[in-house]
């Protein structure tokens, strides 16, 4: 049955890759080089992920090293035999075990694209869905004009837009200074840069950073540019609140302690039209969660992530997870993991036909991965969720943006009866809105763990359910005529 725009036939491949960022695109290219039929999907219009996002809407791009790296990846992917499906939103992934005894078990992936729904099937699935931004709530974080730090990098490198004319920046991690420098370079007045970290937190990571001289130099250039522009650099500071009627008009900053909690001290008020704020990244592991792969919790690497072996295979055979979605470690490690998975898949296919050892290839990538890890670990520490900052969220502060659920409502539900994170969702609607818990999950799980005096592992994560992204039934079905719907014969009486 084919209803209108929906394409009911299933397209088959050896490997399906979800996400065409550095990890997914690299896996797709490498697996295709190994002779496999590869389908790679991304909801954006081009490959590159967030770090190497392609310029859109007439913006020529920044022309820097990052832009060149993204362009090179897109060129390699389009030259490869891997078939890329952009502007396709994956909303369903299921494991399929053939009931008739024939064929191998595999995965069915459904995605909505410009021409309606598309169904794909393959024995191997590589999940490379990246990360989401963590913004620990504060009063006013839902105001228009408050955007994420990663969001600001996307505006600058992909859209050619600065979020405002007078901007305050706050948060933590290496992106903070990078974005400040980017805004200053674009001619925007950056009023202040509030960093949760103290100066000595950065200095403590200097040895790891110096292991990567190119990045150390870039880091130094960032802070110098931000300073020269006249922006006030405020270490050990965070956002107290953002104020305004229908958008940001004022941002109040104040000192924080080492745990990220507000501490007594003078507040500084800035008249600003935008606030760029980010507190690190959280893994986007909805696909592996929905498939019920085993997950582990790592505060340093962005929260929950699928457990993987040395081939990046999860506890579900044939299901692989790479990139920031499998632990936030940055682009370099994502690219290497993508190559490693592509090689493993190629070797697996070859070994079926003509066995050949891929050990040397594996070892070369594994050595590069080992070299890249110290820097990634050092940066991860600066971007990890800070317990004190979450604990200090005010009672009236909205925690779940979609459903406007406050801290007080969450605490009350936990105190009354919510014994599990799923029960908390049912009682408060927290996590039930269109973002599906992507922006409150990390915070709410932490609030619950602290209140119940349980480790995060015991609180767990929300049960993964389809759809992975909001899709309308209209998009799935497309336009159709009732005459085309086959009507089964009535059952015999």
């Amino acid at each position: 049955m084919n209803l209108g725009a929906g394409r009911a036939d299933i397209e088959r491949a050896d490997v399906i890759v979800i996400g065409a960022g550095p990890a997914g695109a690299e896996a797709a290219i490498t697996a295709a080089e190994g002779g496999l039929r590869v389908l790679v999907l991304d909801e954006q219009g081009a490959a590159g992920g967030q770090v190497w996002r392609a310029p859109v809407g007439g913006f020529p791009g920044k022309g820097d090293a990052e832009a060149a790296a993204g362009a090179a990846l897109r060129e390699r992917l389009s030259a490869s035999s891997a078939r890329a499906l952009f502007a396709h939103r994956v909303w369903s992934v299921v494991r399929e075990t053939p009931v008739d005894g024939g064929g191998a078990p595999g995965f069915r992936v459904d995605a909505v694209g410009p021409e309606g729904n598309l169904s794909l099937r393959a024995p191997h699935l590589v999940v490379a869905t990246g990360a989401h931004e963590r913004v620990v709530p504060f009063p006013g974080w839902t105001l228009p004009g408050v955007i994420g730090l990663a969001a600001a990098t996307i505006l600058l490198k992909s859209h050619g837009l600065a979020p405002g004319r007078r901007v305050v920046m706050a948060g933590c991690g290496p992106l903070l200074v990078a974005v400040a420098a980017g805004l200053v370079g674009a001619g925007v007045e950056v009023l202040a840069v509030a960093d949760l970290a103290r100066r000595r937190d950065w200095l403590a990571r200097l040895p790891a950073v110096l292991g990567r001289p190119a990045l150390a130099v870039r880091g130094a250039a960032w802070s110098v540019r931000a300073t020269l522009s006249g922006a006030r650099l405020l270490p050990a500071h965070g956002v107290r609140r953002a104020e305004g009627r229908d958008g940001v008009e004022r941002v109040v900053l104040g000192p924080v302690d080492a745990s990220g909690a507000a501490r007594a001290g003078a507040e500084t008020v800035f008249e600003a039209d935008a606030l760029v704020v980010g507190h690190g990244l959280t893994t986007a592991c909805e696909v592996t969660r929905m498939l019920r792969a085993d997950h582990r919790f790592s505060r340093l690497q962005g929260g929950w992530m699928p457990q993987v072996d040395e081939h990046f295979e999860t506890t579900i055979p044939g299901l692989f997870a790479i990139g920031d979605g499998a632990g936030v470690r940055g682009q370099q490690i994502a690219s290497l993991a993508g190559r490693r998975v592509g090689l493993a898949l190629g070797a697996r296919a070859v070994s079926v036909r003509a066995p050949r050892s891929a050990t040397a290839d594996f070892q070369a990538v594994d050595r590069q991965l080992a070299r890249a890890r110290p820097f990634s670990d050092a940066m991860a520490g600066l971007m990890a969720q800070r317990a004190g900052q979450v604990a200090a969220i005010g009672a009236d502060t909205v925690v779940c943006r979609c459903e406007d659920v406050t801290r007080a409502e969450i605490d009350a539900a936990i105190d009354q009866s919510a014994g599990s994170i799923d029960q908390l969702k049912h009682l408060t609607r927290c996590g039930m809105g269109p973002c599906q818990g992507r922006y409150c999950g990390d915070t709410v799980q932490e609030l619950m763990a602290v209140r119940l005096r349980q480790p995060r592992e015991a609180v767990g994560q929300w049960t993964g359910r389809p759809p992975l992204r909001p899709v309308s039934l209209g998009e799935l079905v497309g336009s159709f005529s009732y005459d085309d719907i086959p009507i089964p014969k009535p059952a015999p009486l």
Partner: protein
Amino acid sequence: MSALLLFRPTRVVSVSVDGKACELPEGMMLATALASAGVRALRTSPRAGASRGAFCLMGACQECAIHVDGVLRQACMTSVRAGMSVELRGVP
């Protein structure tokens, strides 16, 4: 105050925003095009009725979901086309 556009768009087209004609750069994503025209509040939240605008710009948060030609679309992933009708009434 509007967001600051960092390049000169080649062509602007007329788009209807809540029934009012608005000139926006063709091909630009709606969220950015509207922001450059000074429109940052894209919808109100269903429970508190508070103003909301684009937040993550990577297609994940759904804060910029608005009606384009009657269909709910994420403004950060929808390009400006001539004659499109945009309604800032948010998720029903």
